C-alpha cells in the first residue's frame, strides 16, 4: 500500500457551516440575509495507519467539529472524508465501514447512560453492528474491560459506582468492543484530574501499540498533545494554520499563532518568569476577518495578510499557512536552517 494514493484516513478540503440565521419573518422585516457560522472552513490532512494526528486550538476553533465530521456525526458542507480509500458515506448505508471507527468523548459523566449497566454500555456497539450477541457479546465486554484495566466483574455495576478515571476507561472499553481501527478522541482527558489523566494517556498509548490503532486526538492542552502525537495540526477559526511532525512543531513552531500559543502556556519550569501574552481574542466565526483570520492579533500582519487568505505550503517538514513565513519576514532563522540543510 502506498501512502500517497491511499492514506488511511483523510480530510480533503472539508468544511462545515452552521446556519445561525434568525427566523424567516424576522429576516424579512430586518431585510437581512442568511448568516452562516463557518465552524470548519476548508481543512485538509491525512493520518497514516497506526499513527496519531492531534488537532489543537482554542475554544471555537473548530477542532471538535472536525472530530465529528471524521466519524460522520456531522455531514460535511463541502469536501470529503475518506476512510481506507473510500468516501465516508451515510451512517446506515455503510455499516461495514462504520464499525471500523469509534469515538471517545470528553466528559465521562455525560457520555455514559446512568441507567444502564456497564455490561450494556460496553456491549452497545457490538450489538448495534450485529457483531455478536448473547454470550459472545458478554465475552467481548469482559475482554474489552480487561484491556482497559478494569475487571470483567465490573460489567454488573452502574456508572455511578466508578470514579471519573474509571468511567473514562469504560468509555474506552465501549469504543474498543467492536474492534475498531480508527479512534477519534475528543478531549478524552480534559475532564480528569492530572494523576488520572496520566493513567488514561498511558493506557491509550499502550492500546495503540498493542492493537495498531489510528488516533485523531483533539485537545487544547499542548503538553498532553506532545506526549501522544506523531503529527500535530494547529487550528485557528475553522482553518488549519500549521501541520507538522510533533517534535518539529515544538522545536521550530512556524506560524505566528502557534508561537503565540506556545508562549502563552504556563510552564512549570518558568516559575516566576514574565511572559508576553498575545493580545486580543479569537474573533467570531460568523464574521471572520478577511484574508488571514489571525491578522488582527498578529504582529507580522501587513496589507497582503489583511486581503489574501494564505494557502498551506511546505517549509521543511512543516505545512504552514502564513504569508510572513512564506516571504521570510517572520524573523525566524528559517533561512539559516535551510542553508544548513543545503550545505
Amino acid at each position: 500500500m502506498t501512502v500517497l494514493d491511499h492514506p488511511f484516513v483523510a480530510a480533503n478540503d472539508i468544511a462545515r457551516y452552521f446556519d445561525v440565521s434568525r427566523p424567516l419573518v424576522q429576516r424579512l422585516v430586518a431585510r437581512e440575509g442568511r448568516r452562516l457560522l463557518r465552524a470548519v472552513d476548508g481543512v485538509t490532512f491525512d493520518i497514516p495507519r497506526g499513527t496519531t494526528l492531534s488537532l489543537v486550538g482554542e475554544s471555537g476553533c473548530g477542532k471538535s467539529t472536525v472530530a465529528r465530521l471524521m466519524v460522520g456525526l456531522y455531514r460535511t458542507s463541502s469536501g470529503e472524508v475518506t476512510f481506507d480509500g473510500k468516501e465516508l458515506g451515510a451512517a446506515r448505508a455503510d455499516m461495514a465501514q462504520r464499525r471500523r471507527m469509534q469515538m471517545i468523548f470528553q466528559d465521562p459523566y455525560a457520555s455514559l447512560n446512568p441507567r444502564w449497566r456497564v455490561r450494556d454500555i460496553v456491549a452497545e456497539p457490538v450489538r448495534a453492528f450485529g457483531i455478536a450477541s448473547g454470550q459472545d457479546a458478554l465475552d467481548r465486554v469482559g475482554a474489552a474491560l480487561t484491556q482497559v484495566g478494569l475487571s470483567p466483574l465490573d460489567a454488573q455495576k452502574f456508572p455511578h459506582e466508578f470514579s471519573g478515571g474509571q468511567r473514562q476507561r469504560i468509555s474506552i472499553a465501549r469504543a474498543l468492543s467492536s474492534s475498531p481501527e480508527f479512534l477519534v478522541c475528543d478531549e478524552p482527558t480534559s475532564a480528569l484530574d492530572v494523576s488520572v489523566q496520566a493513567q488514561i494517556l498511558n493506557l491509550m498509548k499502550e492500546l495503540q501499540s498493542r492493537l495498531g490503532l489510528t488516533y485523531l486526538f483533539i485537545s487544547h492542552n499542548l503538553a498532553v498533545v506532545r506526549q501522544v502525537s506523531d503529527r500535530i495540526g494547529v487550528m485557528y477559526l475553522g482553518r488549519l494554520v500549521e501541520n507538522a511532525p510533533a517534535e518539529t512543531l515544538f522545536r521550530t513552531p512556524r506560524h505566528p499563532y502557534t508561537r503565540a500559543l506556545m508562549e502563552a502556556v504556563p510552564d512549570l519550569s518558568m516559575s516566576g518568569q514574565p511572559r508576553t501574552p498575545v493580545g486580543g481574542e479569537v474573533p467570531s466565526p460568523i464574521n471572520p476577518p478577511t484574508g488571514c483570520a489571525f491578522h488582527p492579533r498578529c504582529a507580522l500582519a501587513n496589507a497582503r495578510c489583511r486581503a489574501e487568505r494564505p494557502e498551506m505550503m511546505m517549509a521543511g517538514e512543516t505545512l504552514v499557512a502564513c504569508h510572513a513565513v512564506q516571504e521570510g519576514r517572520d524573523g525566524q532563522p528559517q533561512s539559516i536552517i535551510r542553508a544548513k540543510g543545503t550545505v
Partner: protein
Amino acid sequence: MAALLEVRNLRVEFPTRRGILTALDDVSFAIEPGEILGIVGESGAGKSMTGAAIIGLLEPPGRIARGEILLDGRRIDNLPYAEMRHIRGRQIGAIFQDPLTTLNPLYSVGRQLVETMTTHLPIGPDEARRRAIGWLEQVGIPAAAQRIDAYPHEFSGGMRQRVVIALALCAEPKLIVADEPTTALDVSIQAQVIALLKALARDKGTAMMLVTHDMGVIAETADRVAVMYAGRIAEIGPVREIVGDARHPYSSGLMRSIPPLDRRVDRLAQIDGAMPRLNAIPPGCAYGPRCPKVFDKCLVHRPDLMEAGPTRAACWLYDRA
C-alpha cells in the same frame, strides 16, 4: 510581617443522614500582604471548600465545626451574616471560575461596579462611576468609557472574567480569594489574566489565595503553595520547592504526573488508584494506600505537618521523634 489572613485548625463538616462527613480537617495556613498562596489538589481535595469557608459562603448544611479564621487579627468565621457580608466585598474580594454566574445578567457592568463601590466605600455615585471606568481600564478593557453601560452578555468570555476581576477589586480589598479564575479561559486569555493578578499583588500589596488544579498557573503566579489531599494539607512551602522538589510523596507524584511541555516521555508517571471519597477516608495517612513509600505507621497514625527541609509535609518520612 504579620499575617493578613490566618486559618487555624479549620474543620468543615457536612452532616448527612448517614453520618457526618469531614470535608476539611485541621487545615492551617497564613497569607501575608502582597503574597500569593496557591492551593492545589485534585477534585474533591477540599481546595474550593477552603476558599468558601474563608469568604463565609459554605453551602449548607456545611459548617465550620472547629478552628478559626482571622483577618488582620480579627476572627471572621463566627460573624453574623450581615457583618460578614460587609467584610466580603470590602475586605475580601472573590473571583470564581465562571464569570457568567458571578455577574448579574440584568444589570449593566457599570451599575454592578458602582453599586459595589457605593456600598463599601464612602463615595457618591458620580465618583464611583469615574472610578469604575478607571478599574475597567486597569483590567484591560478597551474603550472602557463606552463599554461601561454594556451588559455582561455583550462581553466575550475573557472580557467578562476581567469585569469580574474589576468587581472583586473595586472596593480595594486586602485579600482576594480566586477560585479557578482562569480555568474557563483559553490559554492566551489566561496569560493576560495571570499577568493582571500578579501586577495587583505586586503593586497594591493585595494578598491572594489562588485555588486551581493547574500547576502551570501556580508555578507562574504563586509565592507559596499548599497541596491538599482528602481534606487536609499534605504539604506547604515555597513554590519552587514544591514544583521542583516536593517532599511529600503525594505532591511529588502529582508533579511528576503532569505531562511535560518541553519534552516527550514514553510513559508518564502515574499515581494508581483514586483519591478516597469523604465517607471512606482510610485510617492513618489518607494517601497511605496509594503511597509507594508507605510503611506500618502510616496505616495507623495520621501525620501532622512537620518540617521537611524548606517545606512542611504531613508525612511520617520526616518524623524526627
